[in-house]
């Protein structure tokens, strides 16, 4: 059977390529929206469980390090600001500045990974796992799922940094840079909800 690549016309003639750089952006919003719906359900689940075990949730929440949470918030917001600069630079076709801001976003963002490792290690050292109680089940599930998103974002930033060194940043790559930036903002946004839910609601 003739496969598509065996047709001579296809071997030399790409199909209609008239896509604008921004055309890829709305698609990633579906990914972001779907992800945020699931997180919203998790947040609702947390609040429902919390309402039934208020004392336990508050007591457990008080064991979390609020200052570490604030530091993580600042890290992600700063990193989110840098990725905006990267998108602006890419829109203007400034390759060097785009790569510089993407690198800054990555380096600052890496601080989040370091502080989370410190936090997880301390909890595990104290024998606190996701089976300790329902609060810690949500703590590990929410921060763990968020951490996986963070790792995905870091990978995306690294890939974009490499690609920006090989392609025009205001060409077809721009759509990917903007999509990556939108995803990185989602990582910010999720943390901005997770932080008060887990770290602040229980403080008195």
């Amino acid at each position, binding site marked *: 059977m*003739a496969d598509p690549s065996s047709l001579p*016309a*296809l071997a030399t003639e790409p199909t209609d390529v008239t896509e604008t750089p921004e055309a890829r952006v709305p698609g990633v919003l579906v*990914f972001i929206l*779907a992800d945020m719906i*699931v997180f919203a359900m998790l947040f609702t*689940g947390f609040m429902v469980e919390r309402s039934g075990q208020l004392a336990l949730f508050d007591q457990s929440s008080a064991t979390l390090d609020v200052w570490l949470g604030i530091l993580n918030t600042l890290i992600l917001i700063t990193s989110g600001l840098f990725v905006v600069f990267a998108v602006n630079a890419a829109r203007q076709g400034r390759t060097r500045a785009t790569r510089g801001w993407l690198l800054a976003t990555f380096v600052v963002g890496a601080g989040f990974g370091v502080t989370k490792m410190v936090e997880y290690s301390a909890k595990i050292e104290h024998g606190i796992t996701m089976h300790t109680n329902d609060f810690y089940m949500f703590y590990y599930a929410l921060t763990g799922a968020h951490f996986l998103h963070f790792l995905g974002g870091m990978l995306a930033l690294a890939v974009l940094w490499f690609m920006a060194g090989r392609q025009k940043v205001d060409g077809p790559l721009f759509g990917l840079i903007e999509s990556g930036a939108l995803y990185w903002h989602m990582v910010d946004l999720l943390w901005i909800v997770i932080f008060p839910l887990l770290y602040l609601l229980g403080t008195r």
Partner: protein
Amino acid sequence: MNTNMSNAAYFKYWRACAAMGPVFLTAFIVCWGVLGYNIPPIPADFTAEQMAEHFRTNYNEVRAGMAGAMLFGVLYLPWTLAITKVMEWINPNENNMVSTLQMWGGGLTVVPLVTSSVFWLTAAYRPDVLDAVTLQMLYDQGWLLIDMFYAITTIPMVAIGIAGLTDQRKQPLFPRWACWYSIWAGLSFLFELLMPFFKSGLFARQGWLNFWVEFIVWFAYIVIVTYYVFKAIPRLEQERSALLAKA
């Protein structure tokens, strides 16, 4: 190469294979889900005696359901092949790694679907002589297999998304949103990683997240992809006719 092959011959069976997706989905929900008592699953925090009571009461429905699930479960394979054929046309000048991954991943998804049904069928085969803990173990094993082998289904879902997003057509064969949905849905199965650690709550096999959300997400993916495969086939028929006319 056979450019003399007519479109009717070239695209023969494509629609039939694509139609196997909805057939699979409907039959699987009825057989595996309703007759097999897997929608919703029997809770993981049920005692062995409660589980045994279920099999000793409902063994005939479970036998019929699992036999049906094993029969219709394999329809995931022709459905996968229809997607592969469309994917081969997305970027015909590139290698076929992504479409091949999709074909293997989708084809191998049949394995957990059918094999897990065997465990439930075994439990329903001699529930009167098997002890309660063995029946519980068989039911658990079926669920652990179907849930924890999710990664084999993630591969084709991500592959479809990647291929679709690199489609250079002004109007891609798979719209961007559907590609991102497919990638997201495949990755969302990662929550199943927590399933073995819980017998109750949202992460347990019967939990709202690891059962209701994840299975609805998967079922919706089947419907969405089938719809766009059916929309892609007539477009590819036109594309191929035009290319043959030029050749």
